[in-house]
């Protein structure tokens, strides 16, 4: 029973390596700022995946929003929460924590990957032909999912106000 019936090509492997190694480095890097930069690189790798999946608009949105805004916010916060202690704090798991974490993560991911692989022969091998032009995205957004759009707008305003109120410096 072959796990993956079609071997992935080289671009896919490179992108997967970038995304996975980026996220590992994001968690393991000694300095938080290096971690944030590798997180940004991992996001760019995932944007590459979206391009592969015929979703160029999503890829550009991912870069613009995640790398362009969220990473900036993260960097900004990192620079604001620096003290001598946080610099020296070594984030290595101690005691049995590391083993528990690894077991948890391992079981979860291997379980899901196993399900995916076992269902492998039943899943489509190649994407169905046909394009998904970007101009189709707009009507679907507005016609089929208008309510989430409105809710999203309200959520955005609420989150913005909430963050402002939370982070305000009391005089």
């Amino acid at each position, binding site marked *: 029973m072959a796990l993956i019936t079609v071997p992935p090509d080289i671009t896919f492997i490179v992108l*997967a390596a970038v995304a996975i190694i980026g996220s590992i480095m994001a968690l393991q890097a000694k300095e938080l700022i290096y971690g944030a930069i590798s997180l940004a690189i991992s996001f760019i790798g995932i944007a590459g995946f979206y391009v592969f999946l015929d979703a160029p608009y999503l890829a550009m949105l991912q870069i613009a929003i995640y790398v362009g805004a969220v990473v900036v916010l993260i960097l900004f916060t990192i620079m604001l929460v620096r003290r001598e202690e*946080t610099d020296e704090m070594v984030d290595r*798991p101690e005691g049995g*924590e590391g083993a528990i974490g690894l077991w948890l993560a391992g079981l979860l991911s291997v379980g899901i990957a196993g399900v995916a692989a076992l269902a492998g022969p039943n899943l489509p091998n190649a994407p169905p032909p046909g394009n998904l032009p970007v101009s189709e995205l707009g009507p679907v957004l507005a016609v089929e999912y208008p309510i989430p759009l409105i809710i999203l707008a309200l959520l955005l305003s609420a989150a913005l106000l909430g963050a402002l109120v939370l982070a305000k410096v009391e005089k």
Partner: protein
Amino acid sequence: MVALTSYLIVSAALLGIGVYGLSVKKNAMRILFAVEIIVNAANLNFAAFTRYMNPPSVSGQVIVFYSIAAAAMEACVGLALILVAFRLNSTIDVRKLNKLKG
């Protein structure tokens, strides 16, 4: 041409990394990183499935669109929380941030 399974395996790997970071790390910022990684893994899953559906549909991309926006919002609020917690306790080690009051 890449099989759908490969995308799912990458997504599961990212999920595993995110869960490991979420459960083991003590630095609040790294926990935020881990949450973002998990959300990205889920987005990748959605995007992969919607592409391989027959007939091709674009609804998965809409879901990913909303998911990116919602995750960005939640990261923003989370960062504000970390800022406030740091201001009050001078630390972002989550093991020390375990008092609800004061």
